[in-house]
């Protein structure tokens, strides 16, 4: 489903060169849930953003469903329709109601008519447990509610893959659970997911595989059991000893 080969992303700015992602290779199968962990600044977000072309990488290949993002002829907008993304800061459209947030891209990108888009949106809002707020503007919702709307918005495009970049990091603790529950349900339904998170409980429970990144490099990968109970690399050990 996703095949990353030697992906490298270099930021240059203010005389500094940062190898944010440094030769990462990974494969993610259809229906697999992969959790990416690692210290802050280790390149997790940048790697995730490369996967849907929000960041252009400098070297390597990312092949999604047989399409190479490094190929200049690839229409990145077409790929992005198939790859949903949920951000740490939700990034809901503040000038649109909850319902419109979920219908807009369906109409603009998928060219669905208003009725179909609304039907789909209501169905998804019900699924994330927030159907009664469809007429509200995002600023009137709590963080947890906003993030669930953001998930519904991404799902409305019928993506084949969902990317989550620390979806619960900006939330008050009591709202983390409601968002994780939605994600767990998605995982059970067989969605292919790549999740950057610091929620180790979620990783243990839901992940098929865990990737550990440090300084832009993929340091270690394995099943949650292998990574959490028996980490091989000392940097993984150090990181886990700090967060667990």
């Amino acid at each position, binding site marked *: 489903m996703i095949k990353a080969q030697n992906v490298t992303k270099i930021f240059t700015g203010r005389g500094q060169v940062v190898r944010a992602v440094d030769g990462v290779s990974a494969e993610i199968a259809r229906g697999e849930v992969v959790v990416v962990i690692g210290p802050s600044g280790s390149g997790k977000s940048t790697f995730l953003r490369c996967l*849907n072309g*929000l960041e252009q990488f400098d070297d390597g290949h990312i092949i999604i469903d047989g399409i190479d993002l490094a190929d200049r002829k690839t229409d990145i*907008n*077409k790929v*992005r*329709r198939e*790859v*949903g*993304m949920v*951000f740490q*800061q939700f*990034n*809901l*459209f*503040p*000038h*649109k109601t909850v319902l419109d947030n979920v219908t*807009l*891209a369906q109409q*603009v*990108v*998928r060219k669905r008519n208003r009725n179909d888009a609304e039907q789909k949106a209501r169905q998804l809002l019900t699924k994330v447990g927030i159907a009664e707020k469809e007429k509200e*503007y995002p*600023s009137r919702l709590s963080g947890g509610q906003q993030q669930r709307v*953001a998930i519904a*918005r*991404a799902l409305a*495009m019928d993506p084949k893959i969902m990317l989550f970049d620390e979806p619960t990091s900006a939330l008050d603790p009591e709202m983390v659970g409601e968002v994780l529950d939605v994600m767990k349900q998605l995982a059970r339904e067989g969605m292919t997911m790549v999740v950057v998170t610091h929620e180790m409980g979620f990783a243990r429970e839901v992940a098929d595989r865990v990737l550990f990144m440090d300084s832009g490099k993929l340091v270690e990968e394995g099943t949650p059991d292998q990574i959490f109970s028996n980490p091989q690399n000392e940097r993984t050990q150090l990181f886990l000893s700090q967060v667990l």
Partner: protein
Amino acid sequence: MTTGKAVWPWKLLLAVILIGMAAGVWGAVNRIDYTWRWNRVPQYFLYQGEDAVKIPFDGQIEKVSPMGDRVTVDLVAESGDKQQVEVDAEGLQVAEGDELFEGDTIGFNHAWHLGPLTMGLWTTLWLSACASILALVIGLLAGLARISQNYTLRGLATIYVEFIRGTPLLVQIFIAYFFVGTVFNLSRNVAGIGALAIFAGAYVAEIVRAGIQSIARGQMEAARSLGMNKFQAMVHIILPQAFKRILPPLAGQFISLIKDSSLVSVIAITDLTKSGREIITSTFATFEIWLTVAAMYLVVTSLLSQLVFYMERRLAVSD
């Protein structure tokens, strides 16, 4: 600081200062022996004129039939054609049976006419409206070009903005009329509107650029991650949000434009300012006319401010 502090002493002070200033001006004007003639001003807004009604052929007055303060006059031409006209009773110049030549006056009609101040205001308003619309289009395009990833577009827009903001509007108007206008054979109105639009457009471009850049980067990323292309993201996500933010500075710019439009009077466009100058050459009510002209600009700009204030509140529903 307590919030319950009384404001009335300050209001009183404000009133005293204003009255003091007015008294000072009054005293100064009295010393130079100026005769105020405010009663001359209203006629420049609206006046009653006499329009002569003339006979369109050589002929005779067949019949004069009064109806209240109006009179119906039947005319008959030498060829036998007949016609009927109406004039004011007190303005009637002819009697039944009179022989007239083509162009002779039958009588007068009194009618209200718009005075030069009203006409000038009208010119100022439509000139500013046309220039504003054009400036909005130019500014939007130039503003988008300023943040474009294309070096050439960005360069062009930057040169445009820098050139316009670095030269005086008066000089730009002269260039537009005497240079560009002569080369391309433009009328003074086109040159005037064009100069104003290009001038305001540069400022609008900066407002648009700042407005778009003030929208969080995550908005564009969220839109793009849903598969929207750049254009779709701009139209549906970025511009509507930016518009709300740029409305106040944009309105300020258009209010400035109305005031700046007074400079087109130098290329002999009869706007409000030029009308004022023309009136002063025929009356000598210099003080009254300039104060009136200033008040008229003030009324227009305040009304516009109020309108924008109202729109801002309407747009604030999603905040």
